[in-house]
């Protein structure tokens, strides 16, 4: 089911009320139109020194099923924790012990609906809306693409190999970067969570294409030349990528790349186990080049400032391209439920790997 923004927040409110020892409702900045935005911090047991995981949904408004998947993940985690039962998701069984261990080891942050204004605009006005609903000074157009608004090479346009603009400085574009990095409360909220907690792993859940994406998005990856980093090279002349740096490849440490590939492959397998759908694991740039995205920013923080915690940032693209835009962004039921189950199984894989220390190498 696709749930309205107010009801998603109501679920957060009720869960925090029902389970005060296990759930903290983290109030973040209100949206541009004044809607409440909160995340849940879920934790069981007495452990105080916890690593965190952050799952984000609803960044792009029209990708409706991901916030509902995160609501269902939250409820399912609690239900199986309390009942001590395995979680059977299609052909995949998640052992109760694994779920319990994740709950007792981690701080699990779930921000189910990062862009409530956009979601409501989809329900009420335009079901194909992607951005938030920021009014833009002196502009006829509305909204910022939140997944281009983060502070990683912010404002540098990107262009696909076929010539398509995939990050834009034009306010009317659906991939508009915004008037400044972190200009939007909805993006600052993710930064706030990363700044305030020991988060090791982030998954920003989008639709569609059946992909598990990892950094980098702005350039191809390479593991041999550590001088080729966005923090070390002069990027002041970059207005558009790859046009202004056609041969540039971004360094990623081999150990980090191995972890990204391992975690991504495990998530894809957990997804496939549900009903056989194969998600492709690849760097974001293999889909199309981007700057200012959520998951790249999460990982880039440690590169820009080694004092900050390393965050393994992923983007899931749930569900297939069906040939029909409405169906691909908003699958009808019961197919939507199957895609949500896949997303949940993939996210449980990430939780499991984080809980068992796969991301503990800082």
């Amino acid at each position, binding site marked *: 089911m696709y749930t309205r923004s107010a009801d998603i927040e109501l679920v957060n409110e009720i869960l925090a009320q029902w389970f005060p020892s296990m759930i903290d409702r983290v109030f973040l900045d209100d949206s541009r139109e004044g809607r409440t935005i909160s995340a849940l911090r879920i934790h069981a047991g007495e452990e105080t020194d916890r690593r965190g995981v952050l799952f984000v949904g609803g960044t792009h408004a029209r990708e*409706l099923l991901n916030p509902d998947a995160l609501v269902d993940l939250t409820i399912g985690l609690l239900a199986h924790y309390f009942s001590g039962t395995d979680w059977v998701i299609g052909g995949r069984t998640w052992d109760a012990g694994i779920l319990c261990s994740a709950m007792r080891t981690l701080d699990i942050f779930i921000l189910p609906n990062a862009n409530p204004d956009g979601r409501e605009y989809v329900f009420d006005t335009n079901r*194909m809306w992607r951005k938030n609903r920021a009014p833009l000074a002196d502009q006829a157009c509305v909204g910022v693409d939140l997944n281009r608004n983060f502070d990683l090479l912010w404002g540098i346009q990107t262009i696909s190999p076929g010539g*398509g603009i995939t990050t834009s400085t034009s306010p009317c574009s659906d991939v508009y970067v915004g008037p400044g990095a972190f200009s939007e409360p909805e993006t600052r909220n993710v930064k706030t969570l990363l700044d305030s907690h020991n988060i090791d792993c982030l998954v920003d859940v989008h639709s569609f294409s059946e992909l598990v994406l990892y950094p980098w998005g702005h350039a191809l990856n390479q593991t041999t030349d550590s001088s080729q980093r966005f923090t070390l090279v002069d990027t002041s002349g970059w207005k558009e990528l790859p046009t202004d740096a056609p041969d540039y490849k971004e360094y990623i440490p081999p150990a980090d790349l191995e972890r990204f590939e391992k975690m991504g492959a495990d998530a894809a397998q957990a997804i496939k186990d549900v009903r056989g759908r194969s998600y492709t694991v690849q760097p974001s740039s293999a889909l199309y080049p981007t700057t200012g995205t959520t998951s790249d920013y999460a990982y880039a923080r440690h590169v820009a400032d080694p004092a900050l915690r390393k965050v393994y940032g992923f983007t899931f693209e749930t569900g297939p391209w069906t040939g029909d835009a409405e169906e691909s962004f908003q699958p009808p039921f019961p197919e939507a439920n199957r895609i949500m189950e896949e997303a949940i199984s993939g996210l449980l894989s990430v939780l499991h790997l984080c809980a068992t220390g796969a991301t503990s190498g800082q």
Partner: protein
Amino acid sequence: MTTQDESAERSTLFQGTVSAGHDVVRAIGELDIDRLLGSEQINDTRTSFEALLRLDQVEALVTAGATVTLKRTIDRTFPTQQLLAQVDPLERLRVLEPFREDQEK
């Protein structure tokens, strides 16, 4: 008062395939087309991609030299009966009722 954006919002929207030479695709970037990112197909000379298009954008694309194949009209109205929560979201919480901490067992 109606902004340009609101006016554009009300115009008919189509899903279609745009096909053009790479240079043309680059040039039409200024049209702010809502491309379905990830749908791009590229060969040596041409790029094609799926997009959501207003009629004025279709006209501009054709004028620029692109080939546009319109597949269907997008109904921007959300199909409430079909897709909105068929079950009260609070129903989904019922499975957790037996475990509530805030009530006497």
